[in-house]
């Protein structure tokens, strides 16, 4: 069961579960989500 921790995976999990939502509509802002996911993958 013991696996080496990948903080990137944990971060991705957090970001997917806590998406940025627009102030007015409350909908997920996909452009921000994609930008951050790209940032995590390329870092």
């Amino acid at each position: 069961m013991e696996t080496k921790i990948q903080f990137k995976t944990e971060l991705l999990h957090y970001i997917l579960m806590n998406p940025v939502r627009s102030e007015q509509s409350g909908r997920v802002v996909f452009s921000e989500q994609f930008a951050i996911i790209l940032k995590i993958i390329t870092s």
Partner: protein
Amino acid sequence: MKSNNSFRYFLIFAGAGIYQWAFWHETPGLNISIFTAFIVPTLLFLYPESVKKVPFWLVLTGLLSASLAIVVHASLFATIMYVISIILFVGFAHWSQTKSPVFAIPSSIANLVLTPYTFFAFKNYVATNNKKSSVFLKWVKLFVLPVVILIVFFTIFYNASDKFAEYSDKVLFPIQDFIYNLFGNITFASIFFFVHGILLITWILIRNKNTNLSDAEKNQTVNITRNKVRRKRHFQFLGLKREYLSAFILLVLINLLVLAANIVDIVFIWFGFEFKEGMNLKQFVHEGTYLLILSILLSMGILLYIFRKNQNFYSKGKILKVLSFAWIFQNLILAISVGVRNYHYMEYYGLAYKRVGVCIFLILVFFGLITFFIKIMQKKSSYFLLKFNSWAMYLLLIISSLFSWDTIITKYNIKHCKELDYEFLVHMSTKALPFVDINKLSTDLSYKNPWIINSNYNYDYFYVFSMRNYYVKQVFNFLYDWETDKFLSWSYYDKLAYQNFMSNPELVKSYKIYKDYRIKKNQIENGNKNSVQNRTPALHSDESR
């Protein structure tokens, strides 16, 4: 009381200001010490007569110890003990004749309930020097007119000359910024918090003369005196002799029963304990402990009933006393049995809050039984029991709040337990999390944390996560809070935990992305409001276990 009413109002508003600044959107830490540094000298100044009393100094030591414990490890337990110390401190400072916590707490709580009344009417409730009270108002009236005229002329010049406006701006903008920083974030909640602060400070500083219980305490004596007055009764009470006989039978039977229970415990638990597979140790300790505690408390109640008033002076009552001592001694053995059960449980499952609680409770039971022995032996009153045991309880709890149990429990369990309960460990406060090996946490997504599922935190009703996800989220949240919090929430163990986490380069790399994300998320979701105000609530550890 030395001061006049205006001065008292000034102290209340100053205190409420300090309270607002120190605690609004802050967690307990350094702010507690700042608050204590205001309260203690002010109370000493307002009620100098309390300074000569020993109970006042005992509680002051407790209060300072609790605030020191909060600066060091900021645990929930230390915070609760700080609140209890404040309640006691108010009681002892306001009424210098109070001697025991049993009377200080009701008097302090009565003062708390009457606070709104006290605030508006303390002129009528405290002795004041009315001649001086109008001096402050006189000065205010003297200044109002000149200041209004000055503002009118300033506005004229400001609009008339550009150069004057430019220089005035240089002076006024920093002041405006300062005022904006102070009051810019006024919300209904912050006004409510300020009013709450005013009431709290009024409670602490101003005493209401209706809450004096020291006269009631004066009537209580430590020693019992024999009551020889014969009163005419409308119905028949058991006479001393018949009561003695009934108590005698009860004590003999109960002593035999407890002796049998003690022999079983000594043979099977003290010396012959073996852990067998499939044995429900939880039931064995939890239920066993609760029942034993109940039995000890019940026996104290019965003894208190038997040895009330004149039974203490009954000439043939010596056998009764011997039987009672035997029962107290047997209760001590019962308490040791509880301790041994607790020890076995700790050996197999490690430390937990309740197990530490049982240890503290047992020390108190020991103290209680010894004072009971003295009560019967030297014919002391129930007030004697209440006074000494309440002090023992307070002081022992203060001493135990000095330790950071989260870190002690985590370190002990990691060192001594063969099978670690990781679900319990990830629930610890963040100061204990650096000791938990993150690689050993389960990645099973079915992990559900009831604390989070029940809250409205970030759409959690469909929040699926593993224990490891939860741990990392806690750590990121802690690091972010530590960096955005003011120095007011500072605590030494949090600082150590922060340094510990930041020494891991992999974690730091991911945390930086997390931090940028949180700031951007705040900006998009809440506009450009103060980021501190929009922080998600910190998830505290579940210390009820």
